[in-house]
């Protein structure tokens, strides 16, 4: 077994963008295991940063160091419309974890026999999240990048996933882009894209209400 602690390091000067720079880290940022949120206004580079970390696009300048098995779940991830969730799970989730995935699907009221094309947006999102969460290797460090995983998700399902995140935070680093929908949402570690700067804000008890002023 390798070192189970995942890590993600952004060097000072790391610049993201496609051809034109979108945002730049002014100081070194180091993220360890646990959940880290990624906040920023529309078009400021949240998805671009996730794609850069996922190696789908290259950084324009600077360096990114990753330690852990990566998975990036794009916001628009979708499977074949004829497939049902059970078939998708069987194809992509390792056999020892399949039953746990089906149990979670039942708890969050995801109909695993309904074709993916006939599922609502929220239920499609549940399917994608279950695939990503249960594909993680419990014996290896993992980095999971989630782009807007909560959009369309009901509160109960969201709570279930947050419980899974808390349980598996020992060997998993999650970087989650989102638009929080309640002021008291706790965010102890947040990457904020403010203007063209990438900042790392930390603090126990830090909430969305304290952070949102930075985005304006």
């Amino acid at each position, binding site marked *: 077994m390798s070192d189970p602690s995942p890590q993600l390091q952004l060097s000072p000067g790391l610049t993201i963008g496609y051809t034109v720079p979108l945002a730049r880290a002014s100081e070194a940022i180091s993220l360890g295991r646990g959940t880290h949120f990624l906040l920023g206004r529309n078009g400021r580079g949240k998805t671009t940063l996730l794609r850069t970390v996922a190696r*789908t696009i290259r950084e324009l300048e600077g360096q990114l160091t990753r330690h852990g098995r990566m998975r*990036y779940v794009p916001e*628009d991830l*979708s499977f*074949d419309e004829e*497939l049902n969730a059970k078939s998708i799970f*069987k194809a992509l989730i390792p056999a020892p974890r399949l039953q746990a995935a089906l149990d979670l699907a039942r708890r969050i009221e995801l109909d695993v026999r309904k074709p993916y094309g006939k599922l609502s947006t929220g239920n499609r999102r549940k399917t994608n999240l279950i695939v990503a969460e249960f594909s993680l290797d419990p014996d290896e460090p993992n980095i999971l990048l989630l782009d807007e995983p909560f959009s369309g998700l009901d509160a109960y399902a969201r709570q279930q996933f947050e419980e899974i995140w808390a349980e598996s935070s020992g060997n998993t680093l999650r970087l989650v882009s989102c638009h929080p929908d309640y002021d008291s949402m706790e965010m102890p570690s947040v990457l904020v894209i403010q203007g063209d700067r990438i900042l790392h804000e930390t603090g126990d008890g830090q909430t969305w209400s304290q952070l949102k002023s930075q985005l304006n």
Partner: protein
Amino acid sequence: MPLFRLTLTTLFRRKAWAVCALLVLGMPFVLPQLSSGTENPALLKPALAQAAWCMAWLSAVFWGFFAAARIGEKNSRSGIGEYFHSSGLSATRQLLEIWAALMVFVAPLGIGAATVCSLAASPAAADERSMWIATNFQYGLLFILVVAPLIALAVAVASRFGSLTGFLVSAGLTTYGLYGVGYMKLLLSIEGNPLLSWLWSASPHYHFADPTERLRYKLGAIEWSQFPLLLAYFAGIFLLYTAISRLLFRVKAA
């Protein structure tokens, strides 16, 4: 092989393979009944052989290439390619896994046609029968060798330019290779244009892999001394198209 399993499941669930199986295994027995073969029993078996191979080619082109193009486009435009790429599955590996899953369904079309011909249309005479089986075995191999790189090409072109383009490129190349080069040779015999002559030489001569004439007129198997040359020719095209496919394949649409 997660993408292989996902593609395999997708193809299985879509069920179009069942129609192709019916075409290759069932239609060869129906179509000769509609032809002039019923007036002359001697023509029935050659007609059955011709129908079996026609169904295999038509299924490969109209279903195989279409399914390949659809899956190639879906992989790059739905985030699936990006998801697997981030988890360490390289573009080469993704193309290989998608291709392998498609071949699980497409290769049996050639095997099915060869089996139908061997079991249901074999000549009565023992020496003719062994020749007939050898011919079908040879053409089964050639069919797979021709179709395999065109499947990869349909996936790759579709991942970059969309499913319609992916399908048309592979279907167009097959039609041209099977029939178009014959017309070009005819044209060359009328007008000895050096450009046309070069184009003809560089064309994929897929008609060498079409056994219908040979089976219909019982011309016998390809000489075993010549067969490796034919295999090498199609293996060369296989390598060329595979390289082009890898260059074109994208895991994420631009």
